[in-house]
């Protein structure tokens, strides 16, 4: 082993039993105990199903939403919302805004979100999260409804996004509810593969295998149906231990998200789409600062006043460039505008208030002097407290930020938090806190993953999907709503599903694969393998691609599989988990390269720059390119982007939802 730093032998603190088999039976098996998995588990258990959750970390806090959430999207059925689900479907389609619904978005998960987001939030309230302004801290604020005490973010007229009081404790509350309902939780178990009827690819999914990350024991989970609630793969392009967050995933995605869900579904024959989609993203990492932990004007920090080094205020403007003088003007649509979405994304009709769009040029000319600061002291008291105490105080990974900064003496009543210092052009991008540094061309919210139908069922019988592993991805509220919906559908399926025995050969094959790194006594460590894979992705599947680079990348990955993969070794169950993750990352890298090859066109929406097909979004390519494995061959197919409104589906969202929602 080249890495000598751990050669000082200290006994592993947990009993180690590599290969010892544990068999678990359930009606419904939930893979991944994050936000989607918890909502799915609770909803399935409430309907009487015997539920098992498999989680690589610990359900009490794991997943990208494990440390909290500050605001809840799509709450259109709340009593104060001025937009209905039907109207919102029309609006987001017209807006074509990336985050909400680009032309490659999915109407199924959007419609489910809009119908059930507020119900999911009411569930969370029942499980013990205050949600509303229960202590009357914000009485009289412009963003509060005095009757319901619901608090809203961004658009104070339309009131469809809710600020969540106490959102930081959301996983703790869900964990408690799951235990109350008798859900069986297997923490520290990494799901490694799907089990199928007869051990065959493209057959019904009847369970999964798992590896205990502390003891090295093996798990065979048998179930009538499985719901894939894992996250989309991250950290495929970046691996740096110098930068905080291990994988360079300093922002919104749990570093355990190596892509097992995507990879195991792929091996079982699931249909994937948008794996070629890439963009510098939320999880861009690199030189990033603590998420939401530097001065900002976006998202959690909306709509903070920003000043330059000399205290000169940077104006906020409406969509037409008209300066908005009062702070309160930043929270309303322009005169005559139906609704705004944050920033200037998508169609002009929906552009929201923003800082002057030519800020980069004006910094270059010397009109504004770096560094910039978030001028919290100048904000009205309710807005200041909402940004710092309510939003930063509860968003994922920022409760600790609140405590750490306060402990260091930061006082939002007196202090202006510095904004990242970056090259001027970066101040034109959004959001600032992740804008600059080594790029990761894929990440949280961007999607790429499993294709599904109006039952949130995949092309494999018995396999349902929720949250980020769907090909469109989503945020906290999307994970919550698709989790509860998928649970309803899976429960119905299990009521008539046959019991099928596990194929022993399939289990043995998987054990052979998973334990290979602990059978070796010398070789390379997982970290070298992971770093190497990330470099291959940067080199051959980076911002600009062509057939030659992609094929060369595939050749490199194939060669690494033959050589380094058969030499990777692990000295304890934790290292074994990370080594197996590298095998996952290799498979994910191959899928991304194959998907990038299959779309023979550049696309602005998909962030795909093909040097050999430079025409951007040419007619004929506005479609989903799908990939699936058939034996060892990759089958490329296609679907219309709105397949969910095409036959055999009904032609309207409402009718499809009525037929399928199970309510």
């Amino acid at each position: 082993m080249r890495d000598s730093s751990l050669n000082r032998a200290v006994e592993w603190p947990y009993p180690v039993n590599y290969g010892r088999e544990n068999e678990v039976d359930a009606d419904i098996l939930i893979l991944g105990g994050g936000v989607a998995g918890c909502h799915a588990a609770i909803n399935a258990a409430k309907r009487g199903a015997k539920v098992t959750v498999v989680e690589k970390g610990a359900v009490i806090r794991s997943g990208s939403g494990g440390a909290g959430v500050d605001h809840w999207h799509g709450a259109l059925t709340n009593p104060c919302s001025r937009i209905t689900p039907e109207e919102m479907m029309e609006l987001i389609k017209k807006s074509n805004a990336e985050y909400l619904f680009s032309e490659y978005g999915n109407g199924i998960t959007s419609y489910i979100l809009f119908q059930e987001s507020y119900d999911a939030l009411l569930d969370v309230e029942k499980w013990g999260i205050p949600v509303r302004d229960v202590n009357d801290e914000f009485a009289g604020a412009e963003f509060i409804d005095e009757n319901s005490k619901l608090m809203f973010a961004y658009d104070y007229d339309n009131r469809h996004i809710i600020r969540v009081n106490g959102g930081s404790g959301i996983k703790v509350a869900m964990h408690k509810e799951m235990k109350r309902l008798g859900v069986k939780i297997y923490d520290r178990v990494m799901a490694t593969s799907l089990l199928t009827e007869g051990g065959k690819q493209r057959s019904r999914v009847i369970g999964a295998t798992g590896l205990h990350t502390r003891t090295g024991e093996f798990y065979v989970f048998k179930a009538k149906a499985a719901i894939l609630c894992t996250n989309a793969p991250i950290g495929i392009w970046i691996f740096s231990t110098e930068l905080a967050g291990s994988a360079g995933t300093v922002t919104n995605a749990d570093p355990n998200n190596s892509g097992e869900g995507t990879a195991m579904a792929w091996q079982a024959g699931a249909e994937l789409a948008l794996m070629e989609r890439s963009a510098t993203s939320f999880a861009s990492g690199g030189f990033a600062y603590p998420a939401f932990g530097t001065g900002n004007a976006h998202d959690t920090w909306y709509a903070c006043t920003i000043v330059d080094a000399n205290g000169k205020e940077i104006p906020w403007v409406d969509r037409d460039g008209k300066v908005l003088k009062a702070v309160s003007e930043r929270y309303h649509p322009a005169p005559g505008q139906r609704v705004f979405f944050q920033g200037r994304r998508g169609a002009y009709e929906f552009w929201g208030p923003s800082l002057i769009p030519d800020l980069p040029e004006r910094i270059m000319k010397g009109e504004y002097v770096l560094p910039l600061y978030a001028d919290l002291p100048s904000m009205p008291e309710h807005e200041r407290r909402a940004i710092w105490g309510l939003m930063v105080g509860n968003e994922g990974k920022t409760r600790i930020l609140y405590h750490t900064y306060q402990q260091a003496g930061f006082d939002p009543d007196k202090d202006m938090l510095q904004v990242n210092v970056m090259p001027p052009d970066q101040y034109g991008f959004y959001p600032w806190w992740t804008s600059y540094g080594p790029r990761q061309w894929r990440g949280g919210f961007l999607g790429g993953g499993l294709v599904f139908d109006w039952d949130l069922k995949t092309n494999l019988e018995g396999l349902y999907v929720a949250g980020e592993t769907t090909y469109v991805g989503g945020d906290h509220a999307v994970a919550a709503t698709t989790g509860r919906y998928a649970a309803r559908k899976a429960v119905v399926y299990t009521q008539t599903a046959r019991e099928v025995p596990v194929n022993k050969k399939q289990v043995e094959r998987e054990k052979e694969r998973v334990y290979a790194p602990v059978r070796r006594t010398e070789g390379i460590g997982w970290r070298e393998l992971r770093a190497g894979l990330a470099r291959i992705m940067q080199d051959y599947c980076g911002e600009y691609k062509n057939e030659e680079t992609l094929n060369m990348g595939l050749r490199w990955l194939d060669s690494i599989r033959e050589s380094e993969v058969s030499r990777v070794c692990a000295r304890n169950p934790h290292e074994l988990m990370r080594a197996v993750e590298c095998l996952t990352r290799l498979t994910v890298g191959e899928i991304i390269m194959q998907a990038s090859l299959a779309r023979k066109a550049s696309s602005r929406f998909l962030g795909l720059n093909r040097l050999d097909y430079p025409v951007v979004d040419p007619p004929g390519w506005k479609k989903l390119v799908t990939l699936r494995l058939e034996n060892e061959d990759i089958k490329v197919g296609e679907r219309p982007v709105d397949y969910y409104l095409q036959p055999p589906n009904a032609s309207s969202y409402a009718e499809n939802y009525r037929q399928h929602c199970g309510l």
Partner: protein
Amino acid sequence: MYSKAYMVPNPMTPNQAIFVDEKLCTGCNTCVDVCRTDVLLPNLEEGRAPIVMYPDECWFCGCCAEHCPMPGAIRMEYPLNQRVGWKRKETGEYFRIGMKNPPPPNTRPPVGEAEVH
């Protein structure tokens, strides 16, 4: 000055991430139980502070500190490469996390302090 020197391998990461105060820690391992990436491993000696074994895998989510039942026994620190600073508006003084002689702590709690214990 010490006269002895040791051969010590370079750490895997420059970041310390988690500090455990051995005097305050009761060795209850709550932090070990909530950490998503097993940054912390239990001490082989029962009742002693856990070992910060994999700081390079820390996500800086802060849940270990949030759940610790002993105030001050565990703290999460943003590493130096995350360089956070602010300016006091009235006086123009500049502060940063980790500075010598910091201003006194601000004790106002966040909205909706969660019951985690």
